Each structure stands twice: as structure tokens, then as C-alpha cells.
């Protein structure tokens, strides 16, 4: 079978990111493969290691710098990669349409997508790609088991979890808990350099126009009140309740 893992590159969680009038300044920031996408790659590798004959392809849509994240997926064990290279930023619906073309062309049986992007926090891509492909979709997936032509999944629902079976081909988006991704071994990092990384341009997949235009970007900051209530616990608790009521929290 053919498994495609969608890869995104995001700033390292510890990176200090500045916001300027022109938008988010990513100068000097370390980028890594999105952790949610790593779950996808790891799951694909585990499927293969369980004895299923599978070719694993990492696919990314993004700027040139994404190459590093793609190499990480290859170093983890993906067989080859396709990089749809563009410096333009697209909305998830347009991204999904572009990626669906690549996935369709490869005639994949299973598509693994990160549950939520670590930078802009969008969780739309998996669902949108399923829609574009007309495939069934399981979101927030924490368990995945393959049978001959279906996938049995456990996924988080609003209150609790559900177990579903989906006919293949299908789109699975990942959730924390699906697995514990491996670290690439040194020999596999060396090998990753020699694996195929095919480049595609937007024209190769018919081009695209984003449905949204970004006017301004800002970093979310949380102002804290820094109120510390001291003294006798009983009195402090009463004061806390009063404050919470005042601010209409309770």
C-alpha cells in the first residue's frame, strides 16, 4: 500500500518570535517538523513495521526552507518525498485542493495529516483534504489499526472517544497519544540525503489563488493581572471568591 504523510515546518516551540509592523519576524528562528505531523510519520512507519508492505511518502506544501522538515521525515524512515514548493501562503481549503492533486496522482491508500498546526493553530487541513478527495476522515485519532481494506480508529470526540471503521482510502488526522515518535538514527540521517526529494511547482498542479489575503499578523499575548492574595487561608479564599464574582468569572 501507499501511505502519504503531510509535513509542515514550524518554529521550534522554544523559539522567541517577534512581531513587527510587517508581520511576524522569523529571522534567526529554528524551524522543526510539526510534532503533530511527526505522529503521522511514526504511525506510517509502525504500520510498515507490523508487516504491511508499504511505501511511505512525505509530502509538503510550503517554502524552500521546508526541505529540512522533509529531510527529518526521510531520516525517520519515509521512502521518498514530494515538495510542492511555493513562497506564497494559502488558506487551508486551497492548500487541501493542491495537496489532494498530489495525493490523487500518487493513488495513495492512506493519508496521515497532523491534527493541528503548531504555529497558526488551524486544524482544518485534514478535514479539507478529505473533502477535496471525497475520502472518509477520522480526526483527533489516538489509535489506528489497519485491516485489508479498512482502518479501525479510536478518535477523540467532544465528550469521550469513538471507535470507527473507515473504508480505504481514508484521511486520518493525528492527536497526541497516537504514538511516541522515534528519533532518527545517525545512519538513517545519512541515508536521508540520498533519498528522492521531488520538487513540484504550483504550475505542475494547475496553480491556485488563495481565498484569503493576510492583512496583518500579530502574536497572541496574555496579560496577567498578577494579583496575589496573601494571609490567612480562610480569609484569602473569601477574598478570592469576591474577586472572581466581581469579575463575573463565577
Amino acid at each position, binding site marked *: 500500500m501507499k501511505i502519504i504523510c503531510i509535513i509542515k515546518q514550524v518554529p521550534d516551540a522554544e523559539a522567541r518570535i517577534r512581531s513587527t509592523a510587517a508581520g511576524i519576524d522569523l529571522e534567526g528562528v529554528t524551524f522543526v517538523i510539526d510534532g503533530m505531523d511527526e505522529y503521522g510519520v511514526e504511525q506510517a512507519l509502525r504500520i510498515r513495521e507490523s508487516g504491511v508492505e508499504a511505501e511511505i511518502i512525505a509530502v509538503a506544501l510550503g517554502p524552500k526552507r521546508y526541505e529540512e522538515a522533509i529531510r*527529518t521525515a526521510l531520516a525517520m524512515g519515509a521512502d521518498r518525498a514530494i515538495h510542492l514548493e511555493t513562497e506564497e501562503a494559502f488558506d487551508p481549503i486551497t492548500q487541501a485542493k493542491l495537496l489532494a492533486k498530489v495525493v490523487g496522482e500518487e493513488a495513495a491508500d492512506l493519508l496521515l495529516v497532523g491534527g493541528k498546526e503548531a504555529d497558526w493553530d488551524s486544524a482544518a487541513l485534514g478535514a479539507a483534504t478529505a473533502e477535496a478527495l471525497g475520502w472518509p476522515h477520522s480526526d483527533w485519532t489516538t489509535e489506528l489499526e489497519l485491516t485489508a481494506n479498512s482502518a479501525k480508529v479510536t478518535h477523540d470526540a467532544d465528550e469521550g472517544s469513538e471507535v470507527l471503521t473507515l473504508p480505504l482510502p481514508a484521511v486520518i488526522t493525528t492527536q497526541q497519544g497516537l504514538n511516541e515518535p522515534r*528519533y532518527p538514527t545517525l545512519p538513517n*540521517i*545519512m541515508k*536521508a540525503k540520498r533519498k528522492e526529494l521531488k520538487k513540484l511547482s504550483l504550475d505542475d498542479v494547475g496553480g491556485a489563488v488563495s481565498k484569503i489575503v493576510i492583512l496583518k499578523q500579530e502574536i497572541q499575548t496574555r496579560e496577567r493581572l498578577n494579583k496575589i492574595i496573601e494571609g490567612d487561608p480562610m480569609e484569602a479564599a473569601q477574598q478570592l471568591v469576591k474577586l472572581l464574582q466581581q469579575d463575573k468569572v463565577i
Partner: protein
Amino acid sequence: MVNEIAILDTKQMNFALPEDLLMMQRSVREFAKREIEPLAAELDKRPQFPWQTLSMMGEMGLLGIMTPERYGGAGLDTLSYVVLLEEIAAADAAHSTIMGVTSGLPQDILLNHGSAAQKERYLPKLASGEWIGSFCLSEPHCGSDAVAMKARALKVDGGYKLSGTKAWITSGGEAQVYLVMAKTDPTAGARGVSCFVIEKGTPGMYFGKPEEKLGQHAAITTTVSFDDCFVGDDALVGSLGQGFVIAMSSLDSGRIGIGAQAVGISRAAFELARLYAAERQAFGKSIREFQGVSFKLADMATRIEAARLLTYRAAWLKDRGYRVTQEAAMAKLFASETSAFVTHQALQILGGYGYSKDYPAERYFRDARVTEIYEGTSEIQRMVIARQVYRDLGN
């Protein structure tokens, strides 16, 4: 002093690390930060040989970096080794000591001097981390003057009988494979020393209690004693009487590793002090704005950079087949003294918190100290270098 190596290679001068090495560095940094660094304080408080993380390192290929792929290693060069060892040392010095010994000494020795059978038997298990290796040269009464060793290997029918005590053995009792230097001819000085590979569990081999040390507690250190311990002829590594030469030549690569380790500890201490100085306020500003603090940071950064370059260069020359006795000694000497300087200054910059176990500054300070002692003290490195600078006039 004319350095011919530098003249030969000026056309190739290139300070960029290869792309795949950068990727390995990033990957190992991430691993060390996530898996090793969080354990360091606890391992310091309640020392335990860190088998679990060592086995993860083994899986990644970090315990056999320079051992060829044919023997299950990663088949990389010395430069890769020092770059990656620095990453482990920055997370926890004890891990890097165990890593440095098992890869820099036993694997290096077996690879260069072992018989085909010895290589087949030991290298794959050492390179994968299934087994850890130890190096036994020092004794309770002699370290710098290693030729004064008393350990004796007496020729008997079919093999040798060893007796004597080795001291300060890193991974003693935990390691499976011991490269032991003992005298086969006590009248022949350095030429009377031979090297043996001995497995844990051999009758007549005993381990002492872990030494209580200043730092690096998880890198367990014990004595290893031999009491009429019989080993077969096939335990001899290299030829009879070659043991001292083997030990000294492996120390060339071992010392480059200590250089990398010292750079790693220094880097961790510097990074801690750098961030602390940007946050801590005194007299209405952050302390980094005081020249007295910022100049310390400037000196620390400069020395770390110099130490790293000396270490890289020694590794790079070794990879090109040069004998690096002098360069390895210089890298080890400068990097270890740098780590003492940098960890001292880092502790100072953190003030009272530097002296407290709430921050790792005091641990870095303790962990760094031994880099000036093992694999040849700073005094011994200076002797080696001084001898080398008069090479042309004859030693």
C-alpha cells in the same frame, strides 16, 4: 614554530560543517534536551548508571559513532564524533563521559589493534550500546606515571594470569568489556606492558564500591581488581609488549573527546548565565548591562569558541590521517581549562542562586573539574605539548 599541516591544507580551509552533520547535530540536540537533560539533576543527587538513556543512545547510533557500519557502528568520522559528543555533554556530563570512554577508547583500540575474532565478538555489541566498554590503565598508586603500573600478566599454559588493581575505572562493574593494561615483562618498562580484553564475569575479576566524587556521579567509577584471573591467549590485543603504545595512541582520540565534552559543559553553563544575566535585575537594570558582567560573558564566549575550534581542528586532522598527539593535547588542555573558567564565571553571574542546587550552575562547576584530570592531567598535557614543540631538535 612552523606548522606544516596548516601550510599543506590552507587551500581547503573551510569552517562549515557538512549539511548532514548539521542535521545530526540538530537531531541529537533535540534528543539530549528532551531525554537526558531532565534527568541530570536527579542523577547527580541519586547516582545510578543511566542504562535506559544509554540504550536509547545506542539505538540512535551514538555509542559507536566512529565504528564502521560493518561492525554495527555509524561509520562516521572524528569530527562527527566531537560535534555530537558536545551535544550530549551539554545535556549531562556523566552521559558524555560514559559515551566518550566506550567509544573513544575500547572501540578505538579494538578497531585499530584487535584481531578479526575480537572485532567480531565485541564491536557490534559495543557499537549498539548493548555492552559498554571500559579502559583500565590507572592504578591506585599511579596515574600520570602509568608505566609504573604494578598489574601483572603472567604467561601460563594457554593464556595469562592477571593480578593487580586498576583504579578510577569509568563504568566499572557496569561495563561488560574491559581493555586492561598489565605488565607481561616487568623489566622492560613501557615495552613490557600488554593490552588484554577481558569480560565481566571472568573468574578472579572483582569490582570495588563506586567512588564518591565531586561530580559526574552517574558515570560510576570503581576499582577493578584481578586475583589470579585467567584469560586465554586470544585475550591479548595487539602484540606482546605493545600495550603502552596502544593505550597512548587511543588517548590521542580520547583527548579530543574530552575537549568536546569540556566545550559542551561550558556551553551549557554559558547559556544559563547568558539568559540569567538578561533577566536578573539589580540597581534598576538587568545585570547584563553592567560591564563587569558583560565582559565576563564576552570572555566566556570567546574562550568557548577557541576551545571548540581547537577541538574541531584536532578531529579534522585526525580524519585526514595526521598524527595529532600535539593537537589533541592542546584541545584537551585548553577546553578543560576553559570549562573550569566558564563554569566558575557562570556560577558567579548567578550569585547566590549559582551556589544553590536550584540551578544547575553548581553542577556544571563540579562536573567540569575532572576534565582537567582524566585522560592526562593539564600538567601532563603541557608536558606532551612542550615535548612536541621541540620535535625538530629531538626529544
